[in-house]
Structure formats: structure tokens, C-alpha cells
């Protein structure tokens, strides 16, 4: 080689692997200082602003929508009703046909004749400024002919109930049934039957950034660029093509920095279609950004499941069979995954336990409320809540310690891989180890002793201890499995890793970070595989033009599936570089070894080439190996063979003031097993955030509708999201049982904390009060509910007045809970 083709001498000091180290997140300086671009900060020449008039009625016929007044206002460009826009877009999609009897109602981005929830779009206004659009919106006149609102799931299924969708003829969206073995046989063998009703209340996801969409129709070749605060840019592209009838190759979707999603941005939303349709119609760029209260109505909600659970057991604490019957609220329409959420959780009811049989039934119900869909954990928090609550309740009934009952029933570490009663194979785990570690950290025995003492002395502040030994299934998902389930897409993920001429690295991933830290984690993986500095890796995501292939981020899939693709692609680059190195050394590739970014010929220590030198040599292509090309690049597509099964033990100690009903968390200990860890600090962050969100469901958050179907918790004033001062110090630790189904040995951690924590907290609250006769407290366990539970148990008060605003306006609150028999 001549001097001119020499690579610019890269400095490669002996490097240490960075996988496993708590590197600071690359993206944080930008995100924390705000020196970045969110969708709402996207500017385009001639940008117009869109605002949406939303229905104040839960259910009404639109007898007149008159936008002419708005058109007289200053700065107005256009105003449209739903009927004005019938040619601009069709209905919004649902991607999951969960059963043959699934009813999919028409769901137009702007209502045409009937509004079906408070927040349903009625008209749109387009103006030269946001202020002008908001002012003009007040001049739109609408006549609503009220229709009866359907708000309670059980009443919705009763004969003669008003219907959310007349044309469908029923409020039942779907029914689903699965039997694994004969539950009846287990029941016949059992001498104890625990029957319980648990309620997973409706939650409002609170991503820090409200949703926002910008569409620019002025791209080259009549193409449209959509910026959206979404988790799923690749899905948005496909579905916008279908909904708006614009060819897919004319649409580019960019998700710039996205301020959180938690599932709420795993969707295809009306406003994306509205903005695309308007941009096309008006030939001008348009923007829509939700206010927080608008987001509360128009972004999906989570949970809202009534769970009837029955465990057939023996009196010595062997759990034989599990029966689960769910009612799950769809809301007024089906969003992208609405009907599938409760079903995604169905395999998690048997959890870590060796049930012989499992009977599962689920009914989806329409209501005049905001549609529900995936919210952090999506079906699995609900399942885990029910089973972990039930196991604690059964332990209490059997006078067994809740840990002891679990020990008698869980899969032991020597039984892995283990095929559960649902037919799912758990690859690895060690429930004993995580539990023992958690018990020790927690000081379980000392806290039990203190609890006994407080009970004995009749302390007004009682201590409760709650246990949750969860597992979950994540890393979505094997494509074949998704196909069998009636889902329209696959579950693969793809990555490209390429070296630039000067020896830097670009990782292109089809996952779509929205706050998790992919850029950091993927850089660590690529840096180690290639032996390059962490800082030399750039991660390219979230733009369908730069990343043509991807299935985005949800279901704790990014590392398990996407990270595996990055690792494999990086290995592909090393393989190609090795061919080139061998060619340059005139050696046999088999005689080369690769370590810390440098190839060496075995036995000839002086013959070395760094991967950066090879990147440059490949770029110049002055002398090439057979089969190698000008760019050191490799692709890899991973279709996971199975799910990932993180697990762990969460222990919570609460102090309940029995005089006021106030619950205070005193200790929160969690030991999670998520296999190998790439970045412990990011993992810690995911666990903290997840646990906080789970605690929020247990104690604080609840979307409440009044009996007219108004969302009463319509802003952050009334919907209580706890903040740092309200939460305890989390004491976290890990055990490490590597996954055997991916080369990184990792398991997902994005949802684990949320899945695990809710039952730990509620179990603790109930445990504090059990000796007073309380065996359940509905979530959120507000001070008032706790106080009423104590008084109800004493027989001195009505524990849950029907239909009161306090209790969500739904009579399901008073539906008799099951009892032990």
C-alpha cells in the first residue's frame, strides 16, 4: 500500500468491553437541556395550524355542524366537518383480529353522524396561527341530540342496554375462550376454592410530551413527510398509506425525539390522518399538537378490566387449577391493538406457578369512553395483579406465609426449561434466588415482628407487607406466533451496521426509541463487537427514509430483538473485515484472530490491522478480497424464536393510618432477574420508572367518568400522578440468570417494574388491614377507600356507595366481590 491509501492513523488503545458498564446516556445532554427537536418544534415554510373541536357529549347524534362562523374569523384558512372530509381519509385500522366474532366498528378520524365519547372529533379548523385557530373554533355551531351513554361493562351486556354502535347490534366486541386441561377436574380434587373479583381501574398514560403531528406535502416528487410523536414510525407509514390512499413510497415518517410513550404512542391516531389529509388537500404543511387535557381525552387509556378469578387448591397449599373470567373495556372504538391487550396477558395468569389446569375466558365490551389500548405492560400487569393478589389472599386463608405458599407452587430453578400449563416454554429463571435475596435486603422477619407488635398494641398506624413474585413475557415476538394470533404484522427486527471511511460506525436499527436510551445501549453492543470506542458509534433510528425496515419499539423488544440484530450485524462486519484483512496479509482467514478491534495473524505479532484501517481500505477498494465490497457493512434480521421471561421478587412495606386511611410506603425492595445487563444505569432507570408507574396505579391514578360520561379527571389537577416526593426510595438489586434464547443473554426490562409493583403495594395495604376484617381494597387505594374498607369491615358503613363520583360512577364497584368458600 502507498502512503496515500494509508488510513488516518486511528488511535486504538487497548480497550475494555463496555457492555455491562453504567455508561452515561449519550442522548441525555440533548434531551435534558432541550437542545433538540420535538415534533412540535418542527417548522416548515407556510406552516398552518390545526385545532380540533371535540365532542363534549359521551354519545350524541350530530344533527348540525356549522363551521361557517369560524370561516369568518381572522387568520382562518379552512374549517371542515367530518362529512366534508369523507374523500380525504377512511377509517382507522385495528391490527389484531383476536377472534372470529370480533366486531370492528367504523372509526372515522372526524365523526360523521354520531359522536361516541367525550373527545371524539367533530370538526377541524386550519389557521395561520394556533391562536387564531383556537379563537375560531369557538364560532363553530353544533347541535347534539343526546343518546344514552353506555358506561358500565356489566350493564352494557345486559338485555336492553343502549348500544354504542347501533349497526353492530351488541355491545359485546368479542369473546375468547381457552382451556388448558380440565379445570373442572382440578376443582373436583380441590378442598379449597378461592373466588375473587379484582378490578384493574382505567388509567391515563402520561407521556411527558403530548402527541403532536406535522405533515409537509412539499417534498420532492409529490411526497409527504410526516413528523409524529409516535413509537411506531414504520407502522404509521404503512397505515397512513392505507387510510389516506397515498402510495406508501410517497410517505416518509420521522419520529424525532419523542418524549415518552408507554404504549400510548403505539398507535395510529386520527390526528395523523387528519393532518395528512389536510396537507394533501391544502398543499400546505400543517401541524397539530395536543394540549394535556386534549391528550387525556384523545389518546388511548390503559387497563380497565374486571377480573373474576378462582383458584382450586388443596388445604396444604397446592394450587391445582386456575379459572379466569375477564371483562375488558374497549372504549368507543378499536384502536390499533385494543382487543388484543387483555389477551396478551392471558398466559401470565398462571405466572410462575405449576398449575395443572387453566381456564381462561374474556369478553371485550364497548363503552362510550376513550378507547383503551396498550399501556406499559399491556395485559401483563393486569394478569400479574390478579394472580399475585389471589396468591396472597389464598395464603391468608390457609394461614400460610405468602412466601411459603409461593415456594410450594413455583417452578424451581432445576425445572427449567419449563413448559407451563398454557404451553409456553420458559427458558430460564431462578425464583428462589431472587426471592431469597429480596427477603434478606428487606429484613422480612424483622418487619413481620414489627407488624405483629403493632397489631398487638392496636397501633393506629398498622404495618402491611406485600409480596409479588412476577414473571412476564416480552420481547415481542415470533412472527409465526403473531400470525397464529391474528395479528397483521410480524415481530422481527432488523439492523445494519456499517463502518464509515474514516473508521466510525453507524448502527441503523428498526426499533424506535422514545426515551429509553437505545443510542447508548446499541452503541455499547456495537462498540464491543467491533472493538471501537463507544463514542465512535452513531445510532440511526426513527426515520423511514434512513431506516427502511423496522417494527419499532414496544413490548420490551428493543434490546432482546433489536439489540440481537445489532450484535449479529456487527459480527457480520467483523467477518467481512476479516476477509479483507486476510487478503491484505495474504493469509488464510482461519489464521486470523480478532481482539479489541485489531486483526492479527496468529504467530506473527507484527502483522496487525485495525478495523478502522480496514474500513478505509475497503472504501478505497484499491485491492479487494473475493466477495468483499466497497463498504464495510452488514445487515441482520432477527425473528425471535420465543419470548423473553424476566422475573423477580418485589416486596413492599406500607404504613396505613387507620384513622385517615392514608397509606405511606415505608420500604420498597425489588430484585429483578433480567438476564445479562448491557447498561446497569439504564436498567435501574427502567426499574425506577416502572415501579413508580405501578405504585401510581396502586395508590394514586384512576380515570374517573361521571354518570354522563364526562372524564372528571380531565387534567393533572384531578388525575394524580405521583412525583418524587410521594414515592419511597427504591432498593433495587438483581440476580442474573441469562436468557438462553438470544446471544446477548438478555431479557426485557421496559415493563417489568410496572408489572411487578402494583400487586406488591396493594397486597401490603390489604395485609395491614386483614386482621381488621379487610380482604380487598379497590385501586387506586385512596385514603377514602381504605377508610371505608376498614369501616365496611366493621359493618358500620356502606363501603362503596353505588354510582357516586368518588367511585368512578360505575356500579361495577358494588358488584359483590367473591368470597372464600
Amino acid at each position: 500500500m502507498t502512503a496515500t491509501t494509508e488510513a488516518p492513523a486511528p488511535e486504538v488503545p487497548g480497550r475494555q468491553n463496555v457492555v455491562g458498564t453504567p455508561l452515561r446516556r449519550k442522548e441525555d445532554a440533548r434531551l435534558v437541556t432541550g437542545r433538540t427537536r420535538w415534533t412540535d418544534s418542527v417548522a416548515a415554510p407556510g406552516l398552518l395550524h390545526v385545532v380540533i373541536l371535540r365532542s363534549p357529549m359521551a354519545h350524541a347524534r350530530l344533527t348540525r355542524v356549522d363551521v361557517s362562523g369560524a370561516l369568518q374569523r381572522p387568520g382562518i384558512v379552512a374549517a371542515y366537518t367530518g362529512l366534508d372530509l369523507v374523500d380525504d381519509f377512511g377509517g382507522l385500522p385495528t391490527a389484531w383480529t383476536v377472534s372470529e366474532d370480533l366486531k370492528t366498528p367504523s372509526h372515522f378520524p372526524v365523526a360523521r353522524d354520531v359522536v361516541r365519547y367525550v373527545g371524539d372529533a367533530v370538526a377541524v379548523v386550519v389557521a395561520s396561527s394556533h391562536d387564531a385557530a383556537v379563537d375560531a373554533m369557538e364560532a363553530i355551531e353544533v347541535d347534539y341530540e343526546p343518546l344514552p351513554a353506555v358506561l358500565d361493562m356489566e350493564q352494557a351486556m345486559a338485555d336492553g342496554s343502549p348500544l354504542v354502535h347501533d349497526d353492530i347490534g351488541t355491545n359485546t366486541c368479542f369473546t375468547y375462550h381457552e382451556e388448558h386441561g380440565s379445570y373442572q377436574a382440578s376443582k373436583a380434587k380441590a378442598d379449597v376454592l378461592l373466588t375473587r373479583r379484582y378490578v384493574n381501574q382505567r388509567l391515563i398514560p402520561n407521556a411527558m410530551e403530548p402527541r403532536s403531528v406535522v405533515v409537509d406535502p412539499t417534498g420532492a416528487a409529490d411526497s409527504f413527510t410526516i413528523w409524529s410523536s409516535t413509537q411506531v414510525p414504520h407502522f404509521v407509514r404503512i397505515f397512513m398509506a392505507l387510510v389516506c390512499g397515498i402510495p406508501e413510497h410517497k410517505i416518509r415518517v420521522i419520529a424525532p425525539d419523542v418524549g415518552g410513550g408507554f404504549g400510548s404512542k403505539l398507535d395510529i391516531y386520527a390526528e395523523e390522518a387528519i393532518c395528512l389529509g389536510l396537507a394533501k388537500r391544502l398543499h400546505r404543511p400543517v401541524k397539530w399538537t395536543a394540549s394535556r387535557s386534549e391528550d387525556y381525552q384523545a389518546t388511548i387509556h390503559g387497563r380497565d378490566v374486571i377480573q373474576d378469578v378462582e383458584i382450586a387448591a388443596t388445604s396444604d397449599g397446592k394450587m391445582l387449577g386456575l379459572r379466569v373470567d375477564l371483562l375488558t373495556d374497549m372504549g368507543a372504538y378499536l384502536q390499533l391493538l385494543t382487543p388484543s391487550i387483555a389477551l396478551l396477558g392471558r398466559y401470565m395468569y398462571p405466572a410462575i406457578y405449576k398449575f395443572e389446569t387453566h381456564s381462561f375466558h374474556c369478553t371485550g365490551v364497548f363503552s362510550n369512553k376513550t378507547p383503551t389500548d396498550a399501556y406499559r405492560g399491556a395485559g401483563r400487569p393486569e394478569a400479574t395483579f390478579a394472580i399475585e393478589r389471589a396468591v396472597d389472599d389464598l395464603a391468608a386463608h390457609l394461614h400460610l406465609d405468602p412466601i411459603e405458599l409461593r415456594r410450594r407452587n413455583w417452578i424451581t430453578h432445576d425445572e427449567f426449561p419449563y413448559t407451563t400449563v398454557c404451553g409456553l416454554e420458559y427458558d430460564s429463571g431462578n425464583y428462589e434466588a431472587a426471592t431469597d435475596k429480596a427477603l434478606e435486603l428487606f429484613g422480612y422477619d424483622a418487619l413481620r415482628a414489627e407488624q405483629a407488635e403493632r397489631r398487638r398494641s392496636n397501633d393506629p398506624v398498622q404495618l402491611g407487607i406485600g409480596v409479588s413474585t412476577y414473571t412476564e413475557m416480552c420481547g415481542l415476538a415470533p412472527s409465526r406466533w403473531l400470525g397464529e394470533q391474528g395479528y397483521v404484522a410480524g415481530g422481527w427486527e432488523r439492523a445494519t451496521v456499517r463502518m464509515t471511511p474514516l473508521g466510525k460506525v453507524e448502527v441503523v436499527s428498526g426499533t424506535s426509541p422514545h426515551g429509553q436510551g437505545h443510542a447508548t445501549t446499541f452503541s455499547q453492543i456495537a462498540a464491543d463487537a467491533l472493538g471501537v470506542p463507544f463514542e465512535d458509534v452513531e445510532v440511526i433510528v426513527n426515520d423511514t427514509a434512513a431506516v427502511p425496515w423496522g417494527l419499532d419499539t414496544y413490548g420490551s423488544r428493543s434490546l432482546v430483538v433489536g439489540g440481537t440484530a445489532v450484535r449479529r450485524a456487527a459480527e457480520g462486519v467483523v467477518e467481512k473485515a476479516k476477509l479483507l484483512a486476510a487478503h491484505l496479509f495474504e493469509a488464510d482467514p482461519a489464521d486470523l484472530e480478532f481482539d479489541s478491534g485489531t486483526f492479527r495473524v496468529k504467530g506473527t505479532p507484527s502483522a496487525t490491522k485495525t478495523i478502522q484501517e480496514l474500513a478505509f481500505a475497503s472504501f478505497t477498494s484499491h485491492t479487494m478480497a473475493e466477495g468483499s465490497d466497497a463498504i464495510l457493512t452488514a445487515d441482520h434480521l432477527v425473528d425471535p424464536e420465543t419470548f423473553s421471561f424476566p422475573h423477580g421478587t418485589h416486596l413492599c412495606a406500607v404504613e396505613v393510618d387507620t384513622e385517615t386511611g392514608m397509606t405511606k410506603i415505608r420500604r420498597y425492595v425489588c430484585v429483578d432477574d433480567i438476564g445479562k445487563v448491557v447498561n446497569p444505569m439504564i436498567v435501574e432507570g427502567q426499574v425506577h420508572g416502572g415501579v413508580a408507574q405501578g405504585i401510581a396505579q396502586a395508590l394514586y391514578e384512576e380515570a374517573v367518568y361521571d354518570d354522563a360520561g364526562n372524564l372528571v379527571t380531565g387534567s393533572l389537577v384531578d388525575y394524580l400522578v405521583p412525583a418524587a416526593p410521594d414515592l419511597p426510595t427504591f432498593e433495587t438489586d438483581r440476580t442474573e440468570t441469562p436468557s438462553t434464547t438470544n446471544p446477548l443473554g438478555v431479557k426485557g426490562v421496559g415493563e417489568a417494574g410496572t408489572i411487578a409493583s402494583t400487586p406488591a403495594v396493594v397486597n401490603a395495604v390489604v395485609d395491614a388491614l386483614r386482621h381488621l376484617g379487610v380482604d380487598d381494597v379497590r385501586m387506586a387505594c385512596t385514603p377514602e377507600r381504605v377508610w371505608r374498607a376498614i369501616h365496611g369491615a366493621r359493618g358500620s358503613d356502606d363501603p362503596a356507595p353505588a354510582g357516586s363520583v368518588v367511585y368512578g360512577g360505575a356500579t361495577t364497584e358494588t358488584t359483590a366481590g367473591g368470597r372464600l368458600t
Partner: protein
Amino acid sequence: MIPAQFDYVRASSVDEAVAALAEHGDEAKVMAGGQSLIPLLRLRLSYPEVVVDVGRVAEMAGVREDGAHLVIGAMTTHHEVIHNELIRRHCGLIAEATETVADPAVRHRGTFGGALAHADPAGDLPAVALALDAEMVIAGSGGRRTVPAEEFFLDYLQTAVQPDEVLVEVRVPKLGEGWGYRYEKFHRVAQSWAIVGVAAAVRRSNGTIAEARVGLTNMGSTPVRASGVEEALNGASLERIGEAADRAAEGTSAPSDLNGKADYREHLARVLTRRAVTAAAGS
């Protein structure tokens, strides 16, 4: 959300503010720290044509002594109240209650006078002003008048301040020797409003309670004085606090809302009154 259009007047004196109000009448709205007014404007629940900003009126800010009274300017921010030496020494109950208001950002802008003039029954400071027998000095085109707290709070978000008037300052009798106090705020998350709050000031003498003043937050459409409790505590021994506190809900009309039905609030008022009085009595 954004407010509808309005004109903005920044007053630099009480007279200027009063003149602006006289000119625009019902169409004008006074703005202090804006922490309650601006949310109402943004949600378009209020549509004033003119906003008269009194936030920079120097004569309405600051704290001074006037014999047996402290005089607190209406524009004194919550943050200043918390850190004011005179208030901490002579009316510590106000500082203690103000510490529970909202979060630091809101406390740096929101004002003592604004909180009283806003008269949200869930606000923490009206009950404190009532318990301490504060007096409000109000200016209008006809001059100034002084209204005692019992006559100041008229109804939900309604006070004796007329549309053409401003609240200038608040005169609070100093708590002298022997007084103890406590504000018990019951809320679910740190920065939320009180479900129920109890402001108690107690003077002890010879091991008994010589005098007690108890104000209740969020137990009706205005702050309420728990006169039954005060009466029962008069001259009572400390052992009788519980019994006296049982009268806390007398004469109240607690609201029922997301955070609690009336009966629960009545129960809380009793429990919190017992706790507040016990703490104030220093036992």
C-alpha cells in the same frame, strides 16, 4: 390551551389600579401572581377584556409591624411569606401553612393576597386568615375600608372585594406569648390541594387551654371557623382535646368530590382537628 384576547394594564400604584378598574368595571380582572387566574384564562373559564396587573405595585408588597399587628402586603409572594422573619416570629401559622401550598415554582409567583382574594375553599390560606382573625384592607374609588375575615369570605371564589376594588394588605394580630399553632393538611400527593385542612392556634395557661382558634379548609364553600371546637376547648384540660375535636364538623357543609364524600371529610376534620390542636397545645 391559550386565553382569549384581552388588554393588559400594569398598575404601578394602588390608585392607578383602582382607576383602571373604575374605568373598565366588570370587564376588568385584577391579576396578582396569576397562578389561579391564568389557568382560568387558559381554560377559557374566564373572559376579562382587561387584566390589571398589580404584581409590581410596591406599596402592596412586603411585611411590616404595626403595634399588635403584622401588616402583610397583598402582593407578598408565598415564598417571601415562608422566609419572612416577622411572620415566622409573630404569625408562624401562616408560614407553616404556606409551606404546604403547591410547589416552589408556584410559591415564587403566587401571592398571599391573591390566595385570599381568590377564596378557593380548598386553598390553605383562607382558613388560616380566618383562624387568626385577620382583617383585609380593601381600596376602591371611594377610599379604603377594612373587612374582618369573618365577613370577607362570602361564597365559593367570592369575597367582599368588589369588581372595582383591590385588596391592598392584610392585618394580622400577632400571636403573643403562650401561643402554639399547627396547620394539618391532608392531601394525597405533595403538590395537591387539601382534601381537608385544619389551622389551629392554641394559647396554654397553667396546663389548660385558655383560648383556641380553629379554621377549617375545604369543609364548605368558604373557610369555616370550628366554633364548637373552640367553645369546648375554652378552659379545657388537654385530655379533653379529643372530645372537643369531635365537634369539628358541626355547622360545616363539606363538598363531595373525587377526593372524598362529605362524611369522609367530616371524619377527617375531626381527626385532623384533634391532631392539630394537640400539636398546637404542645403535647
